[in-house]
């Protein structure tokens, strides 16, 4: 009944960490900004665009920090939800091949859309992002329709369908690479490494509007996901509409994944290591696990983004950083805590 760590302490620590990393993310970068300078410019009353420090702060650092936070928290939350849905500790938001479909969409756009059209935007999406989003969403729909044809839509059916479609998409990507002009390859490879280097608030707004209701909907399923962990029969007998729950979690999670994957690229590893690291502290009750993962995911990706900006003289793609720094930390955790007690 009592969580492993007292709830207020968890919340306090989270608010503190998120705040600290957020402030650090605003100030640290290829150029370190000084708070005094920013304050002086703020006092001067000039428009933000004319102040060197403030304009970097507002038009680059702030949207970037928010993007990293939103993407990281969404991926961690969806990771928790998919691990429960698929009854599999290895599940990440990208396990079902949704990001592969997104990447395929991005490739299709790069290869087939020529010239100026490439720089036209659809709402706040670039054509590459829009195409990635459409492909990712279609893939999710397709997985569900296929898996639902199986009389007992078991988690393993969903998983295998998703993984197989993801492989098909990867084959499509290889084929397009083979066809593509060399200059396009460079652009696309960079996309595949992921990045949160957005400028301006358009992407932030899209993510915020898209992700917030989805996240609330997923968090509202937390008690039901607990029940699902003890099998569909027990859950159903306790009043959970199992089919409906599976559909909601799958589609909402896929939509969030599609949004994130099409804007910041494939950095799904966050959805694996953050939920498991959090699980080691809070236990597996989703009512605590999911919100804590949400905060930690956001903070973790912000942190990775700071490193991405400082590691080399230029910018290191964030996808590399999350794996490079998250991987060893996670391996360390695996040796410390009992992770064997997860049964699939």
């Amino acid at each position: 009944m009592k969580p492993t760590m007292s709830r207020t302490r968890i919340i306090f620590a989270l608010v503190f960490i998120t705040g600290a990393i957020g402030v650090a993310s605003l100030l640290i970068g290829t150029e370190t900004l000084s708070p005094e300078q920013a304050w002086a410019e703020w006092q001067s009353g000039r428009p933000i665009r004319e102040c060197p420090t403030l304009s970097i702060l507002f038009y680059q650092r702030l949207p970037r920090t928010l993007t990293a936070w939103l993407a990281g928290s969404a991926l961690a939350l969806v990771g928790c939800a998919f691990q429960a849905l698929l009854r599999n500790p290895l599940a990440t938001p990208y396990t079902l091949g949704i990001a592969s479909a997104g990447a395929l969409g991005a490739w299709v756009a790069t290869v087939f859309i020529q010239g100026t059209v490439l720089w036209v935007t659809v709402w706040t999406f670039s054509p590459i992002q829009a195409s990635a989003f459409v492909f990712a969403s279609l893939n999710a729909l397709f997985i569900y329709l296929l898996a639902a044809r199986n009389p007992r839509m078991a988690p393993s059916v969903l998983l295998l369908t998703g993984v197989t479609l993801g492989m098909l998409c990867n084959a499509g990507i290889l084929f397009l690479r083979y066809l593509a002009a060399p200059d396009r390859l460079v652009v696309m490879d960079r996309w595949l490494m992921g990045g949160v280097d957005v400028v301006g608030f358009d992407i932030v707004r899209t993510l915020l509007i898209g992700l917030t209701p989805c996240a609330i909907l997923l968090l509202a399923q937390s008690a039901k996901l607990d029940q699902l962990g003890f099998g569909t029969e027990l859950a159903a007998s306790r009043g959970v509409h199992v089919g409906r729950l599976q559909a909601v979690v799958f589609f909402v999670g896929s939509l969030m994944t599609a949004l994130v994957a099409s804007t910041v690229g494939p950095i799904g590893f966050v959805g694996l290591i953050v939920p498991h690291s959090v699980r080691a502290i809070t236990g597996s009750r989703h009512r605590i696990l999911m919100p804590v993962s949400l905060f930690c995911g956001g903070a973790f990706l912000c942190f990775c983004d700071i490193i991405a900006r400082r590691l080399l003289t230029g910018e290191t793609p964030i996808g590399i950083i999350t794996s490079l720094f998250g991987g060893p930390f996670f391996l360390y955790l695996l040796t410390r805590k009992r992770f064997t007690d997860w049964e699939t």
Partner: protein
Amino acid sequence: MNQRLVAHRVSFAYDPQTPVFQNIDATIESGRIAAIVGPNGAGKSTLLRVLSGLLRPVTGTVMLNDKPLHGLHAIDRARLIAFLPQIINPAFALKVSEVVSMGRYPHMGAFATLSPHDRNVVERCLHDTETYELRSRDFMTLSGGERQRVLVASILAQEPELLLLDEPTSALDLHHAHEVFVLLRRLAGDGYGIAVVTHDLNLAARFCDHLLLMSQTHQGLLADGPPECVLTEELLSRAYAASINVCAHPITGSPLVTAEADTLERSR
């Protein structure tokens, strides 16, 4: 309130060619314990799923207090009927107390935390099943029988009025199996209506008011009545397609069932 769950001429088939059972009548009502017995594959678990509303009968009706069970909202149903499946594979590690408090689900909102009342219920159920000492253990590290007792506790925490238990004592030692039936008897005295699937005919004979003997070859009920009427050598031998002997228990006087007692060669 007096609850009555009545199955009237229900039939069920997982696939249309092979019916599991046909035209079964069964009544689960407050204050009484019905045991569902029979050989492996007879359809006991299936009948329990039909009674709990998880499966819809192919023909026939299941009525709760004279209203169709399927008309009931799932949460309202869960407040009245609790069902313990035969096999449960948890996906992730939880503490025993968390497992038991999960039984409170039908009484809580999606975001609601456990109220003091919920905590009291959980604590009582832990005591009732002698699992209170295990409460901060990891469920995955328990022995098979300990797990089963914790699951019974979590079903009790649901505070239903009707209990449908699928082999709640299959992994329990003599003492704990007996204690579970004593607990069921007490709950029946408090007004619970109980259906319990079990392979322990002797415990069923001692503690249950009513036995339903199922058999695959008869695709339904072979017998239905008080223990003395159902636990006869003739009926049991037909149900199990084996030689079964019944005598009176020297101490309790209730039927004592032994399989193949007249087979002389011993296996050791």
